[in-house]
C-alpha cells in the first residue's frame, strides 16, 4: 500500500527541512564567532555562503513538502473512504436505515476528510519532531554538557507533558464526543425538519429547549478548556524556563572561562530549537483529540459485522429456475424486538404471480428484504431454483431480482443516470420505452431538461408518485427473472394507476412476481394470494377462495370496500 511510502516520504522531507534550518543556524553562529574573534571577511564568507545554500535547500524541500503532504493526504483519504463505502454496502440498507443523516455524514465525510489523513500524517509529524529534538539536544550537549543536560532534561519534560495532559483530561474529553457532537447533529436534524416544526408552530418552542442545552454545553466546554489551558501555560513556562536557563548558564560559564564565545553563540541560536518540536506535537495533539470521536466512528463501521454471511467461493448461479421457496423462516431485526417473520414456509413456482397482503407490520417488506439478502434469516432457509440463497453471493442473488420499493431513493443526478443505474448499457430507445410504459414520460416531458434534469436529494423536486414511476422504469430496464413489487403503486394517483398496472402487467409476463400490496386493487391478476399477519402466513388461495373462507382476507377486503 501507499501508506508506508507516504509516511516515510513525509518524515524524510520534514527532516531535511529541520536539518537545513538547524544547519544554517550553526553556520551563522560560527560566522559571528569568527567575526568577533577578529577574523577577516574572507574567513567568514564561506560560512555565510553555506548558510545561504542551506536556506535555499530548505525552501525547495518546503515547497515539495507542501505538494507531497497534500497528495498523500488525498490518497490516504480516498483509500479509507472507499473502504468505508464498501463497508456500508456490506452492511446493507438495514444498517443505513438506522443511521441518522448527520451521523452518516460524520462517518463518511468528516471522519475521513478532516481527520484520518491528518492522524496518519500526525504520526509522521511526531516522528520528525522527535528526531529533530533529539538531534538538536545532542548538538547542544556536544557544545557544552552542562547546558546540554539542563536544556535536554527540560525538553524531555516538555515532550512528555502532552501525554500526561491527555491522560488526565481523557475522561473529561470524552464529554466532547458524548455530548457536544450529538448536539451538533441535533441542530442539523432540526434544521432539516424545519418545515415540520413551522407547520406545527413549535419552531420557537424547540429553539428554547435546544438553545438552553447548547448554552449549558458551551459553559461546560469552557470549564473543561480552562483546565487544559493550565497545561498550555505550564508548557509555555517550561519552554521559557529552558531557554532562560540555557542562556544564563551559557553566559555565566563563558564569563568564567568554561565556554568559548563560539560555543555560547551556538547555544544562543540553537536553544529555542530544542523546545519547538515539543510545542508542535502539543498543538497537533490538541486538534487531534477534539476530532477523535469522528474517526472512532469511521473505524468502528469498518469493523462492524455485516448482516449476511458471505460464502468464500459461491458456485455459478446462471440458469437457475426463478422459483422461490421459504422454509420455516424466522427473523427478527433486533434480539429484543418481536419477530418480523415467525416461521413462514411457502413456495412460488417459476412464472407465477403471487400477492402478499396483510396489515402494516405484518412482515411483507421483511420478506422482500430477506429474498434480496439485505438480511439473512436467523432460522430456516430461502431457496431460489432450489439453491439456498446463503450459498450464493448477495450480488448473484440480487442480479436475479428487480425490485420496485415502497419509497424509492433518487440519486442527486439526472433522471437518465438514475435509470441507467439498473442497466448501464441501455440505449436511448430503451429509456424512451420504459419511460412510456411506466408513465414516467409525462414527468420527463414536464422537466426543463427532460432525461438530463438533475433530481434533488431524495428526489426533492419529484413527487412520491413520480418517484415510484421512475422506480418502475428502473425495474423494467433491469429485466431480471424475478420481480418484487413492494406496494408499488401506493403513491400513484388513480388516473395513472391503471396505466402503471398495464406496465406492471407487461413487466410481469414470463417472470416470477411477488406483489406486496396493501391496496387490494394491486393484487388483481395474481395467481395466488398469501395473507400475512404478524409474521405468520395465515391464509393462501385465490381471491375467490379466500373471500369464501371469510377469514382475515375477507376482513381486509370488506374494509377496503368501505363497509
Amino acid at each position: 500500500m501507499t501508506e508506508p511510502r507516504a509516511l516515510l516520504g513525509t518524515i524524510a522531507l520534514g527532516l531535511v527541512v529541520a536539518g537545513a534550518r538547524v544547519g544554517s543556524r550553526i553556520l551563522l553562529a560560527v560566522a559571528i564567532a569568527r567575526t568577533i574573534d577578529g577574523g577577516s571577511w574572507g574567513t567568514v564568507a564561506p560560512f555565510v555562503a553555506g548558510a545561504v545554500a542551506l536556506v535555499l535547500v530548505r525552501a525547495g524541500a518546503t515547497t515539495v513538502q507542501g505538494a507531497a503532504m497534500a497528495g498523500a493526504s488525498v490518497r490516504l483519504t480516498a483509500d479509507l473512504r472507499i473502504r468505508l463505502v464498501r463497508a456500508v454496502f456490506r452492511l446493507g440498507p438495514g444498517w443505513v436505515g438506522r443511521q441518522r443523516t448527520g451521523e452518516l455524514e460524520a462517518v463518511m465525510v468528516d471522519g475521513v476528510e478532516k481527520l484520518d489523513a491528518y492522524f496518519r500524517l500526525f504520526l509522521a509529524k511526531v516522528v520528525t519532531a522527535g528526531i529533530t529534538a533529539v538531534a538538536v539536544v545532542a548538538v547542544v550537549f556536544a557544545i557544552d554538557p552542562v547546558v546540554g543536560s539542563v536544556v535536554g532534561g527540560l525538553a524531555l519534560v516538555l515532550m512528555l507533558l502532552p501525554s500526561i495532559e491527555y491522560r488526565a483530561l481523557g475522561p473529561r474529553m470524552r464529554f466532547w464526543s458524548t455530548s457536544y457532537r450529538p448536539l451538533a447533529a441535533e441542530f442539523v436534524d432540526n434544521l432539516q425538519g424545519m418545515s415540520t416544526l413551522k407547520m406545527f408552530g413549535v419552531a420557537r418552542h424547540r429553539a428554547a429547549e435546544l438553545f438552553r442545552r447548547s448554552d449549558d454545553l458551551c459553559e461546560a466546554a469552557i470549564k473543561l478548556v480552562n483546565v487544559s489551558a493550565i497545561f498550555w501555560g505550564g508548557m509555555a513556562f517550561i519552554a521559557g524556563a529552558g531557554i532562560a536557563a540555557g542562556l544564563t548558564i551559557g553566559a555565566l560559564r563563558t564569563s568564567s572561562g568554561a565556554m568559548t564565545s563560539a560555543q555560547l553563540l551556538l547555544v544562543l541560536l540553537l536553544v529555542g530549537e530544542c523546545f519547538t518540536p515539543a510545542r508542535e506535537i502539543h498543538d497537533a495533539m490538541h486538534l487531534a483529540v477534539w476530532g477523535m470521536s469522528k474517526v472512532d466512528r469511521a473505524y468502528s463501521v469498518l469493523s462492524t459485522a455485516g448482516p449476511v454471511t458471505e460464502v468464500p467461493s459461491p458456485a455459478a448461479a446462471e440458469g437457475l429456475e426463478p422459483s422461490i421457496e421459504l422454509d420455516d423462516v424466522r427473523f427478527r431485526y433486533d434480539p429484543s424486538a418481536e419477530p418480523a417473520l415467525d416461521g413462514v414456509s411457502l413456495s412460488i413456482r417459476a412464472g407465477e404471480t403471487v400477492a402478499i397482503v396483510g396489515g402494516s407490520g405484518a412482515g411483507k417488506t421483511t420478506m422482500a428484504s430477506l429474498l434480496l439478502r439485505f438480511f439473512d434469516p436467523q432460522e430456516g432457509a430461502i431457496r431460489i431454483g432450489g439453491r439456498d440463497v446463503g450459498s450464493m453471493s448477495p450480488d448473484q442473488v440480487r442480479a436475479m431480482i428487480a425490485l420496485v420499493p415502497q419509497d424509492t431513493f433518487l440519486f442527486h443526478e439526472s433522471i437518465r443516470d438514475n435509470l441507467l443505474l439498473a442497466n448501464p448499457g441501455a440505449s436511448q430507445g430503451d429509456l424512451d420505452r420504459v419511460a412510456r410504459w411506466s408513465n414516467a414520460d409525462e414527468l420527463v416531458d414536464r422537466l426543463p431538461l427532460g432525461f438530463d434534469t438533475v433530481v434533488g436529494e431524495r428526489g426533492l423536486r419529484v413527487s412520491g408518485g413520480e418517484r415510484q414511476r421512475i422506480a418502475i422504469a428502473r425495474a423494467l430496464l433491469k429485466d431480471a427473472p424475478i420481480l418484487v413489487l413492494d406496494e408499488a403503486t401506493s403513491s400513484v394517483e388513480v388516473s395513472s394507476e391503471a396505466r402503471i398496472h398495464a406496465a406492471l402487467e407487461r413487466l410481469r409476463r414470463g417472470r416470477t412476481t411477488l406483489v406486496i400490496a396493501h391496496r387490494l386493487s394491486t393484487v388483481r391478476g395474481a395467481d395466488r394470494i398469501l395473507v400475512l399477519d404478524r409474521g405468520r402466513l395465515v391464509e393462501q388461495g385465490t381471491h375467490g377462495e379466500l373471500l369464501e373462507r371469510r377469514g382475515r382476507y375477507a376482513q381486509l377486503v370488506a374494509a377496503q370496500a368501505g363497509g
Partner: protein
Amino acid sequence: MATVAATGERRPGAVRGLVLSLRPIAGLLRPYRIWVVGAALLNLGVHLLTLASIVAGSVLVGRALSGATTSELMPLVWVVIGLVMPIALVGWLEVVVAHVLSFRLLNDLRKTLYERFRQLAPAYFLRRRSGDIARVAMADAEILEIFTSHLAPPLLVAFVVPVVALVGLFVLDPWLGVAALPFVAAAATVPSWLLRRAQDQGARLRDELGELGGDVVDIAQGTREVLTAGAADRMIGRIGAKHRTILGVSVANGWRSGFEQAAADGLAALAVVAVVVTAALLEIHGGIPASDLPVATILAVGAFLPLTALTSVMRDVGQVAAAADRVHELLAAEPQVRDLVADTTRHAPVPRVEFRSVRFGYAPELPEVLHGVDLAIEPGETLALVGRSGAGKSTCASLLLRLWDITDGRVAIGGVDVRDMTQRELRSMMAVVPQDVYLFHTSVMENVRLGRPDATDDDVRAAGELALATEFVEALPDGWHTVVGERGSTLSGGQRQRLAIARALLRDAPILVMDEAVGNLDAESEQAIQEGLVRAASRPTTLLIAHRPSTIRIADRVAVLEGGRVVEVGPYEELRSRDGVMSRLLASPGGIIDPDDEESTDPIDV
C-alpha cells in the same frame, strides 16, 4: 457563489482582502468585541514579551562575549529569568480568552443559523440539497469559529512585532535596519503574491469536497438501490474518479501553499543572513561593538516569527473566505414570508377557509403553478382537493399554511387575510398531516407530542390509539420511548403516517390539512383513521388532498384542480356521474378503484 466571489471582485491586498471577506460576519462578532480585542491584545502581549525575553538573552550573551564578569551579568540574568513567568501567565490567559470566545461564538452562530432557517424554510431551500445545506451551514460555522478565535489575532501581532524589531535594529545601527527592511517588506507581501490563486483553489477545493461529501452520503443512503442494481463497483469507481480530480486540485494547492511557506521562511532566513553579514562588516570596520552582534541577529530572527505564523494563517484563507461567503449568503437571504402585523390578541376567526383568485409561482423564474384558484371550505366541512400529480394540490396546502406568500389574490380564514395574522397565530389554528413525514431523532412519544408540546403522556397515547399506532409502537423495542431514526427510517411508510396523524389529532386544531395523508396505509386502517379524524367531535374544517376514491368519498365536497384552476366543485357522487374532469380522472383505461361499482365490474378490484 463562492467561486464567483473568489474570481470576481476581490482584488485588494492580502490582509485587506481577508478582512473584506470576513466583513459579513463582523456583525456576529459585535457582542464579543471586548473578547476579540482582548484575545488579540493578549496574543500581542505574549509575542512582545517573548521578543523582549530573547533580546534580553542576546544582550546577556553579548555582554558575556565581551568579557563581562559574573556579577556584572547578574542583573541581566534576573531580567531573563523574571520574564519567564509573565510570558507563561499571559499565554495561559490568552488560551482561556480565545477558547471562551470560540465556544460562545460557535454557540451563537448555531443559534443564528437556526433562526435564519426558521425564517427562510421552506421557500429558500426548495432548490437545494436539503442534507447539504444544513450540514454545510454547521460546518462553515465551525470553520469561522476556528478562524476568528485562533487565526485572526496573529494578524495584529504580524503588524506590530516586525515594526518593533525593525525599530530596534535601526537604533543599533541604521545600516542594520536598512539590511533587514526589504526582506520584512517582501515577506509581508508573500501571501498576496498568489492570493487570487489561493482563493480560487480554496473555493474549488471546498466545492469539490462538498460535492464529494454529498455524493458519498447520497450513495450510502441509496444503498438498497445500488445493491439491487448490482452497481456497487460502478459507484466505488465513481468515488475513486472524484478523488482523482480532488487529488489534482489538492496537489496544486499544496505546491502553492508549500511555495508560500518556503518563500516566507526563506526570506526570514535570508534577512538573518543579511543582518549578520552587515553586522559583521560593521564590526570589522569598527562601526558597532562585538557585543551588539548577537542582539542584531536575534532582532532579525524575532522580526519574522509572527510573519511566518501569518503565512500559515493565509494558507487557509481561501477556505475561510468561502465559508464566510456561504454563511453570509444565508444570513442575508430575504425570507419569502414575514410577519406583517404584530401579535394580536384577537379572537380566533371562524375556521372558514377561502381562496380568492389565488395566483402563485414558486419563484419569478419558474412557471406559475396556480392561475387564479377560487375555493371555499365552510366551518366543519371536509373538502377533498383532487387532480393530477403536479396540479398544485400540495401548493394550495402550503399557501393556506403560509409557508409561501401568494403572488396575487387572497387567502383568508374567517374573512381575515392570512397576511394580516402572524405566522404563529395562523399556524396555531392548523393541524397538518404532510405528504413527506419528517420524524425527529427522538422518541416516538416526543415526535407525537410535537403536535401539542404541553400534552401529557396519556394524551399522546390516546392520540396514538385513534391513529391506530398503538399496536406497532408497543411492539417496538422500547415502546413509546423507542428513538426513531432521523427520517423515521426504521419505520415503514404506513407507520410514519400514523405517527403524523397522531400528531395532528393531538393538536386538535379547528383546521385540518391532510396532504395524501393515508397513501401508505392499508384500507382497513385508512378508513378507521379517516373517520376518526374528520368525524371527530370538534369537526375541524378539513382540506383533504387525495387521489383515492376511498379517501375522497368521505369528503362533503370535492374540488378538482386542473391547469392551475379549480375546474369542478361538488359532492363526490355528483362529480362522478357528471361528464367532466373528475369522471375522466376516475375512468382511466383500467377502470379501477371505484368502490361502489366494485361488485359489478371486477370482483378482484376491491
